[in-house]
């Protein structure tokens, strides 16, 4: 690993430590007693104390933090207040659904953004550019849940092409998995794709005006070679960064879409944890989102170093 990669990895660790502190503090600052909530309205003091002790809530906060973070390093995020199951298992159970949705969405987003953004940049103020602007404006301004409901009404209801919701694990039925993925992935992909379309357009425009593009044309290269190696290859650099951020956002659970499509992902899980004041589960989920974000950023930076020789040096 190069010095650049090591430096970035070390930075990520420091940030992660900060994030874990913030997550812990935030959850404990929120008013409401999780034990009381978990027990319902009728309980005796002995049960209450026992549960508090079992959850470690009777210890001072610094000790609780150390215990939590010490466990987290070993993959033990504690036990859910609500269900009594280990948090790690609950999260792992939800991970495939979220991963499927995030990757599906980013594929849809890139399939929209790269061709449409590039075409818009190649012919500014043309019909294609106008279409790109309208499509991305719609994608950015229309709420995801509404888009999802409209897609369900049209493609699941009227046409009956895709299921209205639910997740089919890939391992059980790959075709069913893809079938169930289409509508939710298109819903979130349209939104991400709209952002990425605008971004692709401006990066390609900028790359097009670079002087080395003129050099490439002066060499006698064909339009395809100029576009792919001297325009898109360079425009890709900023796009990689934004795609990474979009992917991290998608992986952190798209709560609204998951609910619209009854998609058993991490977003749903996190929402349930908030509602139930399920501290261990909430902390685990938020910590995981932070790790995902940091890992993706780290990955993007390392990829960037490979794509842009000026950085890795």
């Amino acid at each position, binding site marked *: 690993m190069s010095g650049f990669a090591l430096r970035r990895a070390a930075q990520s660790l420091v940030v992660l430590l900060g994030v874990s502190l913030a997550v812990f503090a935030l959850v404990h600052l929120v008013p409401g007693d999780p034990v009381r909530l978990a027990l319902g309205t009728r309980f005796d003091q002995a049960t209450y104390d026992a549960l508090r002790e079992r959850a470690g809530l009777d210890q001072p906060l610094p000790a609780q933090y150390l215990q939590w973070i010490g466990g987290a390093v070993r993959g033990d995020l504690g036990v859910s207040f609500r269900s009594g199951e280990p948090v790690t298992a609950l999260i792992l159970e939800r991970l495939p659904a979220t991963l499927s949705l995030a990757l599906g969405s980013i594929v849809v987003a890139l399939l929209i953004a790269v061709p449409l953004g590039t075409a818009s940049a190649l012919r500014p103020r043309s019909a294609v550019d106008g279409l790109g602007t309208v499509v991305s404006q719609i994608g950015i301004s229309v709420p995801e849940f509404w888009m999802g409901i409209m897609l369900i009404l049209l493609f699941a209801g009227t046409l009956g092409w895709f299921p209205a919701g639910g997740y089919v694990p890939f391992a059980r039925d790959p075709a069913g998995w893809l079938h169930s993925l289409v509508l939710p992935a298109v819903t979130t992909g349209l939104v991400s794709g709209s952002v990425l379309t605008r971004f692709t357009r401006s990066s390609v425009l900028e790359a097009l005006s*670079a002087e080395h593009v003129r050099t*490439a*044309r*002066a060499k006698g290269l064909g339009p395809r070679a100029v576009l792919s190696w001297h325009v898109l290859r360079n425009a890709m650099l900023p796009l990689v960064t934004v795609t990474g951020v979009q992917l991290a956002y998608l992986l952190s659970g798209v709560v609204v879409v998951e609910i619209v499509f009854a998609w058993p992902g991490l977003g749903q899980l996190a929402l349930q944890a908030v509602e139930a004041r399920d501290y261990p589960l909430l902390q685990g989920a938020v910590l995981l989102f932070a790790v995902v974000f940091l890992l993706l950023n780290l990955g993007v930076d390392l990829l960037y170093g490979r794509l842009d020789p*000026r950085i890795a040096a």
Partner: protein
Amino acid sequence: MSAPVLEVADLRVRLETPRGPAHVVDGLDYAVGAGETVAIVGESGSGKSVSVLALLGLLPASATVTGTASFGGRDLLAMSEAELRGVRGNGIGMVFQDPMTSLNPVLSVGRQLTEGLLAHGVVTGRAAARARAADLLADVGLPDPRGALERYPHELSGGMRQRVVIAIALAGEPRLLVADEATTALDVTVQAQIVDLVTRLQAEHGTAVVWITHDLGVVAGIADRVLVMYGGRCVEDGGVDDVFDAPAHPYTRGLLGALPARVDAQRGPGRRAPDLVAIAGTPPPPTELPRGCVFWPRCPVRGDVRCETEQPPLVRVGGTDPRPHRAATFYGREIP
């Protein structure tokens, strides 16, 4: 002079701008003989770069180019994009101003050199292309040419990058090399090295060179002929000695007066050096060219009634017949 490599006649370039059409090049004629160096000089915005970019179809699509440009018996301006592609980097090589920006920062030097070779079928196969690329880099004086193939532009100095750009331009063994302000962005010592390099390569390969510059020192050193552009028009052209010794156009006289080396040469013993003369005013914007002589608004000797209303024709003021010295002014002495 044998048949010219490039013969440009009545070249006009019009760009559409928000403030109306801009006549960036407004009727330009010139010829470049085999192995000859022609310098096109002028201030920024005089249309000198546009006048060569137009030949290769490298201007934005909104530009309207008319006239003829005969290269190897064919009219470049009548060619399709595909035909032009066969000329670019093959018959005509181009070197651009700033080697910091004219190379792609994310592709290796080898990649940028070989893609042209492969596109034109100069060589076939990666290995042959790399071998040829290394030869080209050695030819332009890059130390460790094989190693340099793996380097990226940011790892090279400005002078080395410009050598790479020259190697790219020469990859197709062009009959004509166009150097567009090729030394402007470089350090003075590096400028001299690049000028020497191009002169040497020209002698070795018999390449004709069009050297676009505003550096009259370079022109005096390397050019056979010089063409002075102002406001999109040629105001004076001729053999470099004719023009430098007896500039006929007030603009050329102004330019030469603004050249430190000339000022030095005029300084005699015991005499105070005259001040460097700058030409007052700025060139006209190409959207608002004057009706008469383009230089009229800034001309120090204007006064002829025709200056303001009539374009002075380019007439012979000296030189000998195959290489006349011509100027477009009412203040030159016309030699019929």
